[in-house]
Each structure stands twice: as C-alpha cells, then as structure tokens.
C-alpha cells in the first residue's frame, strides 16, 4: 500500500491508500483543524474563544460541533476526558509548541482541576467562566483522523501521532514492538513517555489528572485501546490511562479491548483484548 506522510497539528500524519486528490483533501482537513484548534496560534478560533471568557461568543459550526463532542466525552467518562484542562497543561509548562519546550528551572504552577460542567454551549454560542480556557486536543486529533478516513474512497488508513483508523483491515505495530491486526475501527495510544519535559528537575507530561489538575501519576506509561472510531479509541485510551489500576476493568465493562504498558515495560491486556488476540 502506498503511504504518504506530512506534519500537522504537531505530529506526523501518515496516510495509506489515498489518491493524490484524496491526499490533498486530507492535508487541507488537517490544516483547517490546526488553524481552528491550535493552542499555539494566537489567531486560532480556540484562542479567540478563550480570550472571550466571561461572556458569550459565537463560534463556527465546526467549533461548536467539536466542543459538543468534547463535552459528551467528558460526560461519558465522568470528567476523565475534560476539555477545560488548558490552564493545567500550561501550568505544568506545556505553554508553547512541544518542539520548542526546554528544561526550565522554575517549578510547575499550581494544579488547575477540570471544570467541564461550567462550560455553556447553546447552539453556536459558547460561554466560559472567567479564568477558564478550553483545550480541545483531547478530541480534535482523533476526530480529524476519523473525518480524514471518510475521504478515502477505498481501503486504506490514516494515522496521526500514533492514532490509527483503517478501512479494510491493517496490521499495526504496538508501542512495545508487538503487532496486532486491526479488523475494524481504530487504535489509539495514550502515553506519558513521549510528550514529557522537566520543570525544576521534576518530570511533567501532558496527560492531566482532572481531579488534581496535575500530570497524572498513573501506574501506566502507555495505554492502547481499540474503538469503533478513532475518537472512541482515543477517549478509551485516555480514560484507561488516567484510571490507573482501575483502567483495565473500566474498559472491560464497556467491552473495549485495551493493552497497558507499565513504566518498567511489562504489558497487561484487559480481558477483552486477551479474548480477541488469543
């Protein structure tokens, strides 16, 4: 299968099985999502909305739809996947494009717990309380992968930063070098191993525990989940990661196959994964 790569939204996007026209459309789709949802572009719609905290502001249909999905994800995961953790990620030090992050002597800022219930979305109008800022990265990338896959006319796949959605089956390498056959849907991995940096010598990462507003102290380093869509896989992987030792059971109750890697490198599969892959 022919594959093409490009950089967008701070990660590598890989597209397999596309025609030249489909690849152009996928590039444009990712570029548009980056323009609208980037935390690091002062002119992005996300930053315009965040600057308007304290009053209602009209947003584009794409923004409203994405925020609606993010709020539904928060509701379905009891707030584990929270779209209001922007200030917490910034307090931990992730306040610029990841490539330009350097070790800093200052200690991280105070934790900022999630507050998704205080976000108001009425039609195409968003209301944020003062001091609250949205960070929709938790769903934007996976939604972009799902939407990009729809642009392929035949079998193929789209992967962004390791979130893979496929049509027609695909063998996918897992973080520890194992491989699995993705028959239907998508695979996503949440990891504290890649996007990590130090603040005053203390290791920080971007997976924030919404209860404390600080980088999660989960016992897992990487969690891979298989969902019907990339969005489902991504939400499941994040929730599984943040729940720590309760993650495998929580995902089993939803029949979502998932595989967990600890910091020591030992792999644990939940029952759904074990049944499917033996």
């Amino acid at each position, binding site marked *: 299968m022919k594959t093409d790569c490009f950089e967008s939204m701070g990660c590598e996007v890989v597209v397999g099985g596309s025609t030249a026209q489909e690849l152009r459309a996928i590039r444009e789709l990712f570029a548009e999502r980056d323009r609208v949802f980037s935390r690091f572009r002062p002119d992005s719609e996300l930053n315009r909305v965040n600057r308007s905290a304290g009053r209602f502001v009209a947003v584009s249909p794409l923004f409203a739809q994405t925020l*609606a999905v993010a709020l539904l994800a928060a509701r379905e*995961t009891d707030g584990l996947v929270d779209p209001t953790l922007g200030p917490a990620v910034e307090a931990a030090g992730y306040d610029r494009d990841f490539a330009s992050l350097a070790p800093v002597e200052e200690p991280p800022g105070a934790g900022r717990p999630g507050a998704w219930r205080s976000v108001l979305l009425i039609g195409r109008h968003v209301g944020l309380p003062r001091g609250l800022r949205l960070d929709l990265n938790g769903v934007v990338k996976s939604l972009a992968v799902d939407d990009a896959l729809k642009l392929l006319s035949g079998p193929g796949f789209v*992967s962004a930063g390791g979130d893979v959605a496929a049509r027609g089956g*695909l063998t996918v390498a*897992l973080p520890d070098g194992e491989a699995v*056959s993705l028959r239907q849907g998508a695979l996503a991995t*949440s990891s504290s191993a890649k996007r990590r940096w130090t603040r005053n010598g203390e290791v920080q990462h971007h997976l924030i525990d919404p209860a404390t507003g600080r980088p999660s102290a989960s016992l897992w380093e*990487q969690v891979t989940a298989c969902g019907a869509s990339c969005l489902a896989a991504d*939400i499941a992987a994040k929730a599984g990661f943040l729940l720590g030792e309760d993650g495998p059971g929580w995902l089993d109750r939803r029949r*979502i196959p998932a595989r967990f890697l600890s910091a020591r490198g030992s792999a644990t599969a939940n029952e759904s994964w074990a049944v499917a892959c033996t």
Partner: protein
Amino acid sequence: MKDSRLRVARRRARTAKLALATGGSLVFGLAMLFARGSYAGHPKRPTHPLSAPPRFVSVVRANLLQAGIVAPAEAPPQASTSGS
C-alpha cells in the same frame, strides 16, 4: 316619499360601511401574509431551542465508547500506534 328616499339612503350607507369594513379587513389580512412572507426579520418557521440537533447528539453518544475489533497479527505491520 321623503321617508322612502331616506330609508334607501341609509341602507346604501350601511352597505357601503359593511363593504368598507370587509374590504379593509381583507386588505389588512393580505398585507399581514405578505409581510410574513417577505419581511427579512419576520419568523417564517416555528422556532427551535438553541442546541445541537438531537440526531447528532444521539449518533455521537452511541459511537463514543464503542469497541473496535482486533485479532492476532497475521502480517508484518503497515502502521504503528504510539503515544503522542
């Protein structure tokens, strides 16, 4: 003779008043319909609550935490999943 002319005149006046009232009401009603159909700020459809369409919400909720299907690998990997 004079009485009968007066009666006729009164009847004609009553008929004229009735015709004017009917015509006026008709013109008013037609003007209302015209305004409803052509004035830009006039609501032309029943109003709906401002929220995401129920179908969108139900589709998203139904797919939000649905499982995909994995199986043991049978071929070399063509893609990889790794944390971002």
